């Protein structure tokens, strides 16, 4: 404290202090001079200014004050050369901003543990055949036995996911995602109700009164956060159900749960081969995943020998639940994008380093003078590092804005589409810390090479050398060239990746879906069992609804269907008449259940035979329509019309269905958006749908019909919610989102990288040209042509480009292999893309060299005189 005060008073007496120091040192020199006649005193004493400065530092808030001096000095240098500072700051802002935005997304995705406490220890347990090729859910009897025998898991829970309708006096009927869970589900997940009680073992015994736990958002939105809701009765799928508790905010495990009800085994669920449950457990303390795998494998083999007719050949599959979720599947992609944005940042750094190097050449004289009048090397290095960190911090500050803008752009680009829960688009403290760290590290990173080089400057050479003073001449140029080659290598990797993503997106959009998706409105309807107990009720409801919708002005056709294009399909075991019986299990058949009018809605033409009729939709006429792929695979070279097949539903074989027609392939699988798979269409009455899509072709913009549709549904049943009312095109866009969006991001990254890399080449060429002006002048004077000079400049400047390209192409091949998961219809090593990427890079490189090259050719012989 006292020292602080002394320094503070010294601030006022700065002039006095300086005089004291000077006088004192002069006295010392005089005394020493008298004592030592040889005149060595001065040499022995060393650099007086330096000593004086260090003494003065003692009295000042040295670090802060000199720091402030250096900062002001740096600001002045930048102000003298604002163009340089602006380009550097913009390059850094782009690099750091993009990096921070990407960090925010990646960090959000990888740290998302589904809102679970120690989510990485929660395991999904499923049954699988020995080859692990096919994985099944768990049946209730298997679950019960496993739960009783397992030790490596700290409890095993099972659940079933189903949408339900909730109706009561609190508002319009609404559709919610309900999880029927074994009563221990929340305990295994380590989540407890905020209000009321958890589910108990009593709740899941057969015949127990229906109870429900509400999700926090349901409680807030539907019941206004009224705590009195606990203990009241609401209608869940028309069943009066007691609300026993409310979950805390953000707790929606498993999946995006709105409501939790107990899982009460029904007689259908008691079948050991009815594998419709998801099971999860938490690793017991100190147990490793491998131990749990071994134990559950053993247990499943026991079950297989005890119940061979249902369990033969089945073993257990144990996987961390976060591995099974969507965010995890995206991780490799995030790694690639994070890498890509890191490349952009590195290119920006290399750029700025190059600019600083070029500037360093011009500053050798200034630095030499500073060293000569007493500046220490450390001080010089610090000064230069302060300059580069100032650039990077300013870049970081602007980068924050770039990051905000980038995330907004991302948000807007995905506007109206449902975003996954792990997608975090808000900059937070972690992002800021990251940005700050990146800014400082980049500042030091790209400042260090020029700083070290400058601090080593040969004072005598620089001072004697008439003009600019060169820093290592050839040496510095080779460092600059290495940096440019490095930039080029990174850039070609980004370009190749972006090129492949662009081609994927193009492939995706150019592949015909197989039906006309424009002007189609879709919505989902879930008919509760309590009000529509029989399958006939389902068929009748949808028939009546379609008739009503058909009658609306603006509607061309309406139909019920089980799955939309790119929306998956149903699956049944099946057999083809006359086919040799295969293995133990029947093969699975992909099917779409639809009304006849579905083909009218999609304007799907008939390839052979006919479609089924409206009457056949509802009358169980035992007909089916197959797609071309199915016909070609099942009956190659034969006429499929008149052939018969049958499906197995609820463990019983249905009647034989006669193929009446063949339709074109329609894309159903969004994971393999280019593959048409074999598929058949079943008339609605063959497998009536409790949860279904309603699709309608409209003559007006489909979005405008949403309210009319809702009204019609509720005129038929006022307790029935209509949900996900959206256009078909909107849904398809969402399915294609990953590829198109990441394609767009990669393209932006690559474009930024390209610009930065060509700036890098430009600055190096410009610098080397400016240094060789004299030489060019002489060459011209002694009869060289401008062609000679152009060749000279281009040969020298394009060399790092070619080297970078040679190094970058093989690396690009490695990188693009990581992209495989999101590539559609193009191989990771696609030669056309690689060629195009190289071409673009060379073009950008030539453009970068062209301006300085032109200046070189225009050199006036007069420049010689200026020396």
């Amino acid at each position: 404290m006292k020292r602080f005060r002394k320094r503070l008073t010294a601030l006022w007496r700065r002039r006095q202090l300086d005089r004291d120091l000077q006088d004192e040192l002069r006295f010392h020199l005089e005394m020493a001079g008298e004592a030592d006649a040889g005149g060595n005193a001065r040499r022995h004493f060393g650099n007086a200014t330096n000593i004086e400065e260090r003494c003065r530092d003692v009295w000042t808030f040295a670090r802060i004050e000199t720091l402030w001096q250096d900062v002001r000095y740096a600001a002045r240098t930048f102000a003298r050369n604002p163009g340089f500072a602006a380009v550097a700051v913009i390059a850094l802002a782009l690099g750091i901003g993009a990096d921070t935005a990407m960090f925010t997304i990646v960090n959000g995705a990888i740290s998302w543990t589904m809102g679970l406490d120690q989510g990485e220890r929660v395991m999904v347990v499923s049954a699988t055949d020995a080859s692990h090729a096919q994985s099944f859910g768990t049946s209730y009897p298997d679950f019960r036995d496993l739960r009783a025998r397992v030790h490596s898991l700290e409890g095993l829970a099972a659940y079933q996911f189903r949408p339900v309708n909730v109706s009561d006096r609190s508002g319009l009927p609404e559709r919610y995602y309900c999880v029927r869970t074994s009563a221990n589900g929340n305990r295994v997940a380590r989540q407890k109700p905020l209000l009321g009680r958890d589910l108990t073992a009593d709740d899941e015994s057969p015949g127990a009164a229906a109870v429900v736990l509400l999700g926090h958002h349901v409680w807030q939105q539907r019941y206004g956060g009224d705590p009195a809701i606990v203990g009241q009765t609401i209608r869940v799928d028309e069943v009066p159900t007691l609300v026993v508790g409310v979950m805390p905010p953000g707790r929606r495990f498993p999946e995006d749960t709105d409501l939790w009800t107990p899982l009460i085994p029904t007689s259908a669920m008691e079948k050991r081969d009815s594998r419709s449950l998801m099971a999860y457990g938490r690793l017991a303390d100190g147990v490793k995943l491998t131990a749990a795998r071994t134990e559950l494998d053993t247990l499943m083999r026991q079950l297989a020998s005890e119940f061979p007719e249902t369990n033969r050949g089945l073993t257990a599959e144990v996987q961390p639940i976060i591995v099974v979720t969507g965010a995890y599947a995206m991780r490799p992609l995030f790694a690639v994008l994070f890498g890509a944005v890191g490349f952009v940042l590195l290119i920006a750094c290399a750029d700025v380093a190059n600019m600083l190097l070029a500037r360093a050449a011009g500053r050798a004289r200034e630095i030499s003078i500073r060293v000569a009048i007493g500046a220490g090397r450390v001080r010089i290095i610090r000064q230069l590092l302060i300059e580069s960190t100032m650039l990077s911090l300013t870049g970081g500050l602007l980068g924050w804005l770039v990051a905000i803008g980038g995330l907004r752009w991302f948000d807007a680009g995905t506007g109206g589409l449902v975003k996954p829960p792990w997608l975090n688009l808000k900059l937070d403290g972690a992002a800021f810390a990251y940005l700050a760290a990146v800014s400082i590290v980049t500042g030091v990173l790209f400042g260090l090479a020029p700083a070290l080089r400058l601090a080593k400057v040969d004072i005598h050479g620089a001072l004697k050398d008439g003009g600019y003073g060169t820093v290592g001449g050839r040496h510095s140029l080779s460092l600059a060239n290495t940096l440019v080659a490095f930039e080029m290598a990174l850039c070609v990797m980004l370009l190749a990746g972006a090129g492949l993503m662009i081609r994927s997106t193009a492939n995706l959009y150019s592949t015909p879906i197989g039906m006309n998706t424009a002007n189609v409105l879709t919505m989902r309807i879930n008919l509760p069992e309590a009000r529509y107990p029989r399958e006939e009720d389902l068929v009748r409801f949808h028939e009546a609804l379609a008739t009503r919708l058909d009658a609306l002005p603006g509607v061309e056709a309406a139909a019920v269907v089980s799955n939309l294009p790119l929306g998956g399909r149903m699956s049944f075991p099946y057999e083809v008449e006359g086919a040799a019986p295969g293995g133990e299990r029947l093969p699975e058949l992909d099917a779409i259940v639809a009304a006849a009018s579905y083909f009218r809605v999609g304007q799907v033409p008939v390839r052979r035979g006919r479609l089924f009729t409206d009457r056949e939709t509802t009358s169980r006429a035992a007909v089916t329509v197959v797609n071309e792929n199915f016909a070609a695979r099942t009956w190659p070279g034969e006429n499929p019309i008149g052939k018969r097949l049958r499906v197995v539903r609820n463990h019983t074989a249905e009647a034989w269905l006669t193929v009446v027609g063949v339709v074109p392939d329609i894309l159903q699988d969004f994971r393999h958006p280019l593959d048409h798979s074999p598929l058949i269409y079943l008339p609605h009455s063959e497998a009536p749908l409790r949860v279904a899509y309603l699709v309608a072709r409209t003559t007006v913009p489909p979005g405008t019909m949403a309210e009319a549709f809702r009204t019609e549904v509720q005129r038929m049943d006022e307790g029935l919610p209509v949900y996900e009312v959206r256009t078909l095109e909107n849904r398809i866009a969402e399915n294609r989102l990953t590829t198109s969006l990441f394609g767009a991001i990669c393209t932006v990254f690559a474009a930024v990288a390209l610009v930065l890399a060509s700036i890098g080449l430009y600055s190096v060429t410009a610098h080397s040209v400016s240094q060789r002006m004299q030489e060019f002048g002489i060459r011209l004077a002694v009869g060289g042509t401008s062609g000679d000079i152009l060749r000279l400049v281009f040969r020298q400047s394009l060399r790092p480009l070619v080297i970078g390209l040679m190094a970058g192409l093989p690396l690009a091949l490695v990188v693009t292999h990581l992209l495989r998961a999101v590539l559609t219809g193009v191989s990771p090593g696609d030669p056309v893309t690689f060629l195009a990427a190289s071409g673009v890079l060379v073009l950008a490189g030539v453009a970068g060299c062209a301006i300085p090259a032109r200046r070189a050719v225009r050199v006036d012989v007069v420049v010689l005189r200026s020396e």
Partner: protein
Amino acid sequence: MGERTTPELLPGTLYMLILRTLRGGPLHGYAIAKRVKDSSREDLIIEDGSLYPALNRMLVKGWLKAEWGISENNRKARFYQLTPEGRHQLEQESEDFDRLIRAIQLVMRTA
């Protein structure tokens, strides 16, 4: 015997040497350096480059105070003298130093 090498000043001992030199009364910078050099029979040499920054640091710490006076050859010189705090610091440091040296010697002889 070749040229005698000057041993490096042990780190941290510079303050102590300056404080000890000033115990006899005020001295100017040049005299401090000379006194240390002479009393160590030229074994210890304080670099001019480190003497003055050290003196200034000690002023800031409050161990010394400085006044301008007239030197033995009638020149204006800056004289340093111990403050009570400096005296205290000297006792402290020499005690610590003695203990350290004894310990080192013990080890060197016995170990």
